[in-house]
């Protein structure tokens, strides 16, 4: 049992790469950074928090739980490379959350947070992912909508 669980956990990074990145097919659209935020929705519309929760919890799509814990009682073994997502919606505005997902390196060049909506300045991207953001604009809006609900 223990070994099987361990195996499943260790296998995760390989699984990330083997599964296509959701619907993130289109090249990124332009956006405007104001201070430490992207105030406007990338799609011009509000995201769906329920869909966002599913993206965050899916380790092949959002990948979030590989590094962050959060209010996900069903999730097994979240990572601890980054702060828990609990209270993210209280700490940050929607615009601040959006920039931190889109391209956190704009705020901290040394961050390990992957740039979810940047396709430039990257090296040796695997051909199947080249030119595509990790998440689509619509997926990021869904995630922003979900994180904004995390007030505690």
């Amino acid at each position, binding site marked *: 049992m223990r*070994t099987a669980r361990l195996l499943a*956990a260790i*296998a*995760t*990074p390989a699984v990330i790469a083997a599964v296509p990145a959701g619907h993130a097919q289109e090249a990124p659209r332009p956006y405007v950074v104001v201070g430490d935020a992207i105030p406007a929705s990338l799609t011009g519309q509000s995201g769906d928090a329920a869909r966002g929760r599913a993206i965050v919890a899916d380790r092949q799509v959002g990948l979030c739980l590989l590094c962050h814990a959060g209010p996900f009682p069903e999730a*097994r073994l979240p*990572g601890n490379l980054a702060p828990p997502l609990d209270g993210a919606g209280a700490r940050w505005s929607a615009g601040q959350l959006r920039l931190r997902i889109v391209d956190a390196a704009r705020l901290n060049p040394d961050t*390990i947070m992957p740039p979810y909506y940047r396709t430039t300045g*990257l090296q040796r*991207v695997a051909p199947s992912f080249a030119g595509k953001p990790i998440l689509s604009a619509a997926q990021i809006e869904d995630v922003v909508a979900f994180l904004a609900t995390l007030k505690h």
Partner: protein
Amino acid sequence: MNRRQRSAASRTAVAALAAAVAVTVTVALAQTPPGTTGDARRSGYHDMGPALRAMQDDDSANPAMLWVRDGEALWNRRLGAAAKACADCHGSAASMAGVAARYPAFDAQLGRPVSLEERINLCRTDRQKAEALAGGSRELLALSAYVALQSRGRPIAPPDDERLRSYVAAGEALFKRRLGQLNLSCAQCHDDNGGRRLGGALIPQAHPTAYPIYRLEWQGLGSLKRRLRGCLVGVRAEPFADDAPEYVSLELFLMRRARGMTLEAPGVRP
């Protein structure tokens, strides 16, 4: 076979081999590779649970010993147009003691560093006049494991070879370079976050103390190059070509980074 059947078959095979291996493996070693006091470096061995540590420590349970046995047979098999065995030139494999602890080494004829696997293949083509073994093939892993076993328990001792310096530097630069769609460098995970968890997986410090390793995820023996390729795929980078110089440069750097740590090959990892 499903995984359970394979695992059962593998256990049976391991048990059947126990006696033979116990006779052939005469290298005395500490059962628990010790960490050096005051040294923050840590072999992935110490991050494993007691069951996996016991599997590595017990030659009758360590699945890598199946490859070692094959390697011993290959060592003594005459082949190629020269009809020579490794043993015809090198004698007992005990003459290989320390070799795996200092490779990769600079090859003067090729004018570049070569890994232990490549050295084995150079012997095949140049001395045995046989075809080179495919990278990652069972035979090459078996010979590598058999040769590496001869250095088990020894400290990793890469030479201060002036000719290797630029390659080591290239390996270090590569270790620190962000790669792939996830834009992560080796150093960001293994230097900065070793010991933390990526999902349920503990991030090791990435010291190459036990290669080739029997990895449970692989259900087989694999080289450092295979492990490096796995990390590249994990960050969604395009792996380097199989014969690319990047792998040997990284290995050169990693061996220096692990200088003095105890070689545990062939190891077991999750």
